[in-house]
């Protein structure tokens, strides 16, 4: 889709949203709507099941003749211990009622042809060929996890789907919800219903993302993996007992009640997944930002925190609108799960997100705000720009974490966004960096990796915090304006499509070239090669400063026909200062060095950062008293900031101040002991 066309659609959508007819939310589709779902389902709260019938239409987007459909049955990940999900997690659920599954009772085509017999579970990752990605080390899917998984099902079609043709399939299904696991299921009478219906995979025509030939892109459900789907139209009728309050990723179009039950008709346009929630306890708070209605579904004990949530959503809406692109839907719903359903917290379904908070949590601890901003951000990075979360998780989690950092620090303070107490505080950008480096092996594996390829304990730091820190570093290098331009272009070009990492980097390089700012070269491939595709560690250091009297360069010199001897004498009032720099990591980035002389003069030097050891030498009457690598603290990827500076005579004041504090602390502890003495 051409960017100008997209913007026209978005503008029209924003203008008419809220005034829309009872039938549609947006005046025109924002995506090709390759898939369209009509689902009619009923929740049985006692049996913890959702049963119903769905009709799905799939339009073949390729030039291929397609003879099979592939569906995800995500809940089968919780069916037994042999699923890929639970095998990888090495844990299961305990009681019989805790397990979950999706049973397809029948499947037939629009023309009535029965397909049920054609269903077979497949394990696409069993035959996975190494991705044509630039992985430093191509890793196949772990072999021991193959074989018994039932989270993907294939159905062979008697009448193949021709290019640009549409197939309609009607499925009767029953989904038994698990005790909340991986953001779906039930806990007591709280239901968060995600990944609950047979969902089509994405058919990638040749040339799309990394596809060399057309085919279905599905993966078994894996613990770290999230989802990948086409932007779709959803028309969903949900029947629940009367007393349940329901929220979903769709817009409520109609509600009818009879016999102690009610049926809610939702419609959602151009979203990648449809999830919903039901609970007897929800209390609803509503707010609005421009034409976007904000609905917060809170636990009664958290209701007083409604404003905290809605403020966070409004900050995010405003910031994304100003720096990336418009939010096209006229509504967003935030769900606050109960404590006993916290497993559903912190999840994104584009227009429906889950947050998480605690009773009486001080306003200075901005966990609820951070989660809300983060999950809302996924409306852009995965919702609108629908990357494959299983194959390239950094592309939504990492980029979205970067935006979360920016929004949080902008809204709640650079050094106080996450924790804002007067004497202990931390911002979101610095929190991301600290969290990433806090891991034992921050650079063990590349960030660009499939979600199942991360060794134990590395996924979070490598997929969320490291790329956020990498992009924060990039922002400080190229400037925030340039970053905004990059993301605006990325949005314009890839909204409601499926970008890959190479598409993102291509946009970055284009913007760099268009701006003509070649400070870091004509492209930034070298940057991503090191810190996204590679595991380079960045650490520059000022090793020391050596000052000595400047000396005449003595020796024998040719003067006319004779050699003249010149003594190596000290030059009066001149000093030779050597600033000794080193590169301790394998990462290379051009870096600035600030050198300070004893007369207070400061000069800024540039170093390409390539040599392992590098000296700056000055012969002048002033002595160098201090030097600092990266004085603007642009390189947040630098793993050790302590060695970035060196002063010949370091100030004793910080030590004095903190020793005085420490003395006071020790005295107070000692005196507090007197209470029991």
């Amino acid at each position, binding site marked *: 889709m051409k960017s100008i066309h997209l913007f026209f659609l978005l503008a029209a959508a924003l203008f008419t949203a809220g005034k829309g007819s009872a039938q549609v939310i947006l005046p025109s589709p924002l995506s090709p709507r390759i898939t369209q779902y009509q689902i009619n389902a009923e929740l049985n709260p006692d049996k913890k099941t959702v049963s119903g019938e769905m009709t799905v239409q799939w339009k073949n987007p390729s030039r291929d003749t397609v003879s099979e459909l592939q569906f995800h049955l995500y809940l089968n990940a919780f069916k037994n211990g042999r699923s890929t999900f639970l095998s990888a997690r090495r844990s299961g659920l305990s009681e019989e009622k805790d397990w979950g599954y999706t049973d397809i009772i029948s499947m037939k085509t629009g023309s009535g042809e029965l397909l049920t017999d054609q269903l077979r579970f497949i394990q696409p990752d069993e035959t996975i060929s190494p991705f044509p990605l630039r992985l430093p080390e191509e890793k196949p899917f772990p072999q021991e996890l193959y074989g018994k998984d039932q989270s993907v099902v294939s159905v062979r079609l008697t009448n193949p789907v021709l290019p640009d043709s549409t197939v309609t399939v009607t499925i009767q299904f029953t989904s038994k919800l698990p005790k909340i696991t991986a953001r779906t299921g039930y*806990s*007591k009478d709280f239901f968060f219903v995600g990944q609950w219906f047979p969902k089509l995979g994405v058919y990638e025509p040749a040339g799309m993302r990394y596809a060399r030939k057309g085919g279905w892109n599905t993966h078994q459900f894996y613990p770290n993996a999230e989802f990948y789907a086409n932007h779709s139209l959803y028309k969903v009728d949900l029947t629940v007992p009367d007393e349940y309050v329901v929220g979903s990723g769709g817009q409520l179009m109609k509600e009818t009640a009879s016999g102690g039950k009610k049926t809610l008709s939702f419609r959602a346009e151009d979203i990648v997944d449809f999830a919903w929630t039901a609970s007897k306890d929800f209390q609803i708070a509503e707010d609005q930002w421009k034409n976007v209605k904000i609905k917060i579904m809170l*636990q009664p*004990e958290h209701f007083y925190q409604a404003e905290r949530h809605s403020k966070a959503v409004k900050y995010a809406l405003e910031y994304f609108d100003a720096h990336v692109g418009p939010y096209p839907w006229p509504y967003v719903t935030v769900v606050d799960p*109960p*404590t*006993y359903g916290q497993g559903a917290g912190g999840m994104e379904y584009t227009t429906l997100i889950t947050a998480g908070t*605690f*009773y*009486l949590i001080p306003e200075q601890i901005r966990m609820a705000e951070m989660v809300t901003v983060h999950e809302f951000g996924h409306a852009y990075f995965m919702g609108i720009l629908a990357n494959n979360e299983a194959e390239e998780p950094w592309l939504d989690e990492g980029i979205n974490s970067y935006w979360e950092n920016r929004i949080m620090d902008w809204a709640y303070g650079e*050094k106080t966004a996450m*924790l804002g107490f*007067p*004497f*202990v*505080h*931390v*911002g979101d950008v*610095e*929190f991301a*960096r*600290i969290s990433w*480096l806090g891991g034992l092996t921050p650079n063990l594996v590349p960030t660009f990796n499939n979600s199942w390829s991360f060794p134990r304990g590395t996924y979070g730091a490598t997929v969320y915090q490291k790329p956020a820190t990498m992009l924060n570093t990039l922002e400080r290098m190229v400037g925030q304006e340039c970053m905004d331009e990059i993301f605006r272009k990325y949005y314009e070009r890839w909204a409601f499509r499926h970008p890959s990492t190479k598409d993102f980097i291509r946009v970055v390089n284009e913007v760099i070239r268009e701006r003509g700012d070649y400070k870091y070269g004509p492209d930034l491939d070298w940057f991503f090669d090191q810190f996204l595709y590679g595991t380079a560690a960045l650490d520059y250091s000022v090793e*020391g400063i050596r000052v000595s009297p400047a000396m005449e360069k003595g020796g024998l010199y040719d003067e006319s026909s004779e050699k003249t001897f010149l003594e190596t004498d000290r030059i009066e009032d001149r000093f030779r200062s050597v600033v000794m720099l080193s590169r301790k990591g394998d990462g290379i980035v051009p870096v600035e060095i600030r050198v300070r002389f004893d007369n207070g003069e400061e000069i800024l030097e540039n170093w390409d950062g390539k040599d392992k050891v590098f000296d700056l030498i000055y012969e002048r009457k002033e002595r160098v008293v*201090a030097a*600092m690598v990266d004085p603007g603290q642009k390189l947040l990827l630098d793993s*050790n*900031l*302590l*060695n*970035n*500076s*060196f*002063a*010949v005579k*370091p*100030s*004793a*004041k*910080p*030590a*004095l*101040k*903190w*020793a*005085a504090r*420490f*003395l*006071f602390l*020790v*005295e*107070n*502890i*000692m*005196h507090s*002991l*007197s*209470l*029991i*003495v």
Partner: protein
Amino acid sequence: MKTISAYIHGAKTAWRSLRLTLFIYLSYLGIALLIAIPFFGLFRSATGNSELADGLMKGFDATIIREILVSKGQMFRVFIQGLFPWLIGFALLQVYLTGGIYSKIASPGGRSNVSGFHKSSIRFFWRFLKLTVYFLIIHILLGLILYLPYLIITGVHTNLTDKQVVVPFLILLTSHLVILNFIFTWSDLVKSAIYEQDSRKVFKGIFRCLKMALRNFFRLYLLGILLALAPAAAAAAYYLLRSGVTVDTTGLIMLFLLIQQMFIMLRVFFRIWRLSAVYRFYLSAINPIFGHGM
């Protein structure tokens, strides 16, 4: 009236004991300096020639603290672990000095001399140490009684809301503070009894004084509250003062060091006030001459 007169008497005695306050403060300061001076050296050595720590002049900075701890955290860990024996030593010094404090507050007109102070300190050291151990056990038992059922219930019942977890905890915490006020005053009452009666029967003294404390519950409890007010007010005043100022120059560092030390000295003053007030309360409870009778 007994409560108020004991409270005022305590304040007067503490006011007359400024030299003792200074002496005790300096003893504590000596120990604290023995810990703080190496910390100063450690901090300087940890930051070396780096200018990063200069950022800490503006106040707390999570990034800078992280950098220092990651680079030199082991040094700090060893140092902090080494503090434990010092705290034990300090607790023993407190026990030791308590006997001396009583010699001062019990003497007519608040007069005593150095040798009398130390004689009393030595005389009552073991008794007060025993008492400390007994009360430590009481504190542990109280903690178990209050929190163990809570921990078991909240651990077993996973279907509780956070409000159902937080509210009982806050109730328990408040109850704990309420009970602590009684226990601290009771403990000071036992010290008064041991000193006044020169008794070696510490364990018995605890129960006798418990009876006395329960008989005079409201008056003694009120005294405990009154004695907590001044330290709380001083702490609040310090907090307000501290939170309004960025200590970023040598002059301000020195000024706040002075204020902090005055605060610590005030804590010594409050301790003498407390012991003296409870001692007076004890005397009035056993002998109406000192108050308005029981």
